[in-house]
């Protein structure tokens, strides 16, 4: 399994080859509360880093999820639409949102490592 990288908006990516799996972090799901709806990215969509890629909603909050990296969506986790609770139960595993084929691997360099992200969380 590839190493994980993180954004300040609490998205993660896990890179395997040229495909990055992304979702929201455990911290993010905790802040949102019980997730009730997820709009996953459309397969075939081409996303730019930082653009809106998905929407996640709890009862009292809605958040946009931004593409952590640029590329084409090659797979999306449509199972979340039927069972959004997976995002709470296993955000960084079964609760992934989509897979992006990277167009610019250097974008990864700007993201945080797991240790950096942990340090970042402690400042919040």
């Amino acid at each position, binding site marked *: 399994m590839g190493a994980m990288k993180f954004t300040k908006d609490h998205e993660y990516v896990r890179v395997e080859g040229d495909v990055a799996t992304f979702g929201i972090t455990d911290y993010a799901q905790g802040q949102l509360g019980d997730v*009730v*709806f997820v709009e996953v990215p459309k397969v075939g969509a081409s996303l730019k880093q930082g653009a809106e890629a998905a929407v996640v*909603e*709890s*009862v*009292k*909050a*809605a958040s946009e999820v931004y593409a952590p990296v640029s590329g084409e969506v090659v797979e999306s986790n449509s199972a979340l639409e039927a069972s959004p609770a997976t995002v709470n139960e296993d955000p960084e595993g079964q609760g992934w949102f989509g897979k992006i084929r990277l167009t610019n691997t250097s974008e990864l360099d700007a993201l945080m490592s797991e240790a950096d992200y942990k340090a970042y969380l402690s400042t919040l």
Partner: protein
Amino acid sequence: MRYLPLSTDDRSAMMARVGVDHIDRLFADIPHDKLLDHVLPLPLAKGELEVERLLAKMAARNVPASSVPFFVGAGAYKHHVPATVDHLIQRSEFLTSYTPYQPEIAQGTLHYLFEFQTQVAALTGMDVANASMYDGSTATGEAVLMAHRITKRNKAVLSGGLHPHYGDVVRTLSHMAKADVVTMTPDLHAKENLIAAIDDTVSCVVVQSPDVFGTLRDLKPIADACHAKGALLIAVFTEVVSLGLVASPGEQGADIVVGEGQSIGNGLMFGGPYVGLFATKTQYIRNMPGRLCGETVDAEGKRGFVLTLSTREQHIRREKATSNICTNSGLCTLAFTIHMTLLGEKGLRALADVNHANAVALADQLAALPHVEVINEQFFNEIAIRIKGDATKLVDRLAHHGIMAGVPAARLFPHQGLDDVLIIANTEINTADDRAALVAALKEVM
């Protein structure tokens, strides 16, 4: 002042407790030169009796519908409302409650909203309905914006049979929201070719049935043409009682159904408040505006109801909300629900039957008059006639004779060549004597 419980002594004692020696110290943030130092030039407080006298005098200058033979419709209809309805909606716990944000102490409201949503879905033949909108016209405006969100297109086609006020609301909203609207010309004979106007840039087609002239429209071919081009059919009605006798818009293929619910439970009220009905298919729920009530359970597993899917709404999504609306038509919705419960399917069908029978009777009588042409072939409880001369003048003259003959089409479509057209509504309130009086008066003045 009878509505203010604080006495002068209370006020002094409370100011002392708060630590101010003058009430204006609490208004100190208002710039000193803007704080009013006088009472505004308006009348001073009055007792209940004086207020009643004043308002009764104004009310007496109007002619109530129930005092004359009354045939005015075109979007608002005079129906009989059972006494039970008005009694129940004046129960304090309904009348003086707020939007049910604390569901544990608002189950009364939530429970009837759930009943209302179910009733509206059943009537319209759709999967889901929301907890109501302001009225039929604003519901239509919201439906058009919703269609744009779903189709990601922004052009609406409006039938020439759509109530022109509804059309104006859609055009105003669309103009401001930079969306396109194609409006068909006023369509007295239901002859317009809407299908030719549908191409793959069109987001939705808006068709009213019965239309503003009373004619029942065939929605099915328009729905099929819409779907072939990836557009949605928005079906509109202004007379909800028609649904008791006419095939539902859902059966005919509509994607969004909106309409005015005033006829059930609500009086004429000079135009408001009314209750907008809004229904759609399950797959569009998340694009739907307005409040939704949903079923759930409490901590002990007992059934209860809550407002739900509120992340579509302005108080959470702010500029990303599906609509800016934060109100439904609460008490009017309750009146609708109670009246519909009293009616039931059996009563609604019977009511619709009487309405239609009365309209058919009047249409036959009018058709027999010289110089009168009845326009409609198929209709519910409203018809349009063409007369010799100016319909506005005719209506004014008949009003002098104590008969409210209908709505001159020119009041809704000024300067569009419909000066000789009169729109006439017939409901269960119209007796054979009323119809005879209208026919006799028409004979006399024409």
